[in-house]
């Protein structure tokens, strides 16, 4: 992830309508933004559209960007607003269907087999699932920190919560995951 100075330089160049700067921001931020939106919408095609829209919007508002505020956090914040808006609209549209579907999906996961010869793939797949199961805000704070490398301050800005709450979300998520790992294969936790 580029550092704060790089973002600030990009911000200035965008203000001056430098298209090449938009290309650089896109190249650096496309993957993280896509992953973040996808983690909220759970739909690759929608995430692709929203990601595209975000960079177009960034260009539209380039003249009113504030180089003293984090461009990175701004991008994630736009991503968050759009992703949640989309989710809200979708939910109101398909409330009934979802209710029915959730009933059938929400079965407890099968107990993991106590296989000593633990396959790394298996843990990965399980971890992914357990992360999915985390409460939305915990998963969001954890992913932004662990997978996208955002600072606590940036996450606080994006999620509109205090840095202290960011910490609490992450610690709570880690604790939940620890219990699931422990139930799955306690040996993984020592070392």
């Amino acid at each position, binding site marked *: 992830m580029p550092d704060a100075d790089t973002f600030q330089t990009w911000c200035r160049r965008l203000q001056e*309508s430098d*298209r090449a700067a*938009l*290309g650089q921001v*896109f*190249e650096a931020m*496309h*993957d993280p933004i*896509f*992953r973040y939106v*996808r*983690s909220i919408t759970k*739909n*690759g*095609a*929608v995430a*692709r*559209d929203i*990601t*595209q829209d975000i*960079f*177009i*919007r960034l*260009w*539209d*508002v*380039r*003249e*009113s960007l504030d180089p003293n505020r984090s461009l990175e956090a701004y991008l994630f914040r*736009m991503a968050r*607003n759009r992703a*949640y*808006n989309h989710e809200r609209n979708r939910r109101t549209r398909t409330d009934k269907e979802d209710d029915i579907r959730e009933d059938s999906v929400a079965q407890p996961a099968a107990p993991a087999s106590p296989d000593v010869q633990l396959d*790394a793939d298996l*843990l*990965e797949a399980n*971890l*992914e699932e357990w*992360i999915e199961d985390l409460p939305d805000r915990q998963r969001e704070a*954890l*992913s932004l*920190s*662990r*997978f*996208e490398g955002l600072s*606590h301050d940036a996450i606080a800005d994006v999620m*509109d919560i205090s*840095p202290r709450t*960011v*910490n609490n979300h*992450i*610690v709570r998520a*880690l604790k939940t*995951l*620890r219990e699931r*790992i422990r139930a799955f294969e306690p040996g*993984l*936790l*020592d*070392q």
Partner: protein
Amino acid sequence: MSRTHESSMPPELRERLEEEHPNERAGLARVWTLLGRVAPPFEAPEASDTWAAIEAHLDDASAAPPLRNGHVHEDVDRSARRADRTTRSSSRARQSSASTWTSATVAVVVLLALSVWLWQRPVTVSAPAGTQQTATLPDGSTVELNSGSSVSYRRAFQSWPLVDAARRTVRLDGEAYFDVSHAGRPFVVETFNARVEVLGTSFNVRARSGDAAATQVTVTSGQVRVSSPQHPDRSVVLATPGESSRVTGDVPTPPSTANLDRALVWRKQGFAVTDQPLPAVVRELERRYDVTITLHPSVDRQNGALSLYYPQRTEAETVIRDLCLARGLEYRPTSRGFEIYDDAPTGAPTDTAQNSA
């Protein structure tokens, strides 16, 4: 040993973990480390398509100056977040306003700016991956959208409130079948690299940027004119049902006869690709079935073009199985879809050597 793990941990989190019992601390730090195995949780798709779409959009809009009222977006974002926050915790005190009179004026101005901005925003209809959709345009024309495609157009095809634009212009990203109603104004479909102009007719446009980027136009009735934005003068007219033209560079190809059943099979939930390279076929499958298909490095991406034709609805896995059979490849299911790999790559030891190096 846990030093290296903790070094990747944000300082705030490390401090926070100091508050935990020492036994707890080690376990939580270990979880943090184990999470490194899953990062990143989702593979991002090829960014080049998205970038091409963005550039096309910006080129389109380049005549217009940047939004002076860009802060409106911020305001929208902020008010949305504020609403969000109030629903979350209504206990937060509301800030007292300095003067109700000025804020009322500001509100009116913002509202006006917002409504103009909303009005000039094009209307977009899209069919996400795995779905298809039919839309009726303001003039009564219909558009059937294939999976992973979208059309956008100006509200009521007007250039300004209550003022009709000279043409009915629709922007297409992906594939669609148009049935255009007769009206005085020409109907124009713009894609990332081509322009299709008609009076009243039905035709299919397939515009996919990215791998094997091209816009393919096939006419089913009436007459259409195809050109590229660079050379509007060197256009090609399609006047016989089944005639087709393709735009990849600056000039459309001369009319050739296409198999109509095949070109329109997607409207009957079938699946067809004609002479496409493997990565393009894979992208098409991803859109059609909303799955993620990865090509293992052992697969030779360059090796020849593929054609597939399924007149009826067919499972994604069946298509992939056939495709692999035709190419001597193997596939396996993954958590998000499928991976295609080559069991015995002929010229591929260099690939694997590169990967391990």
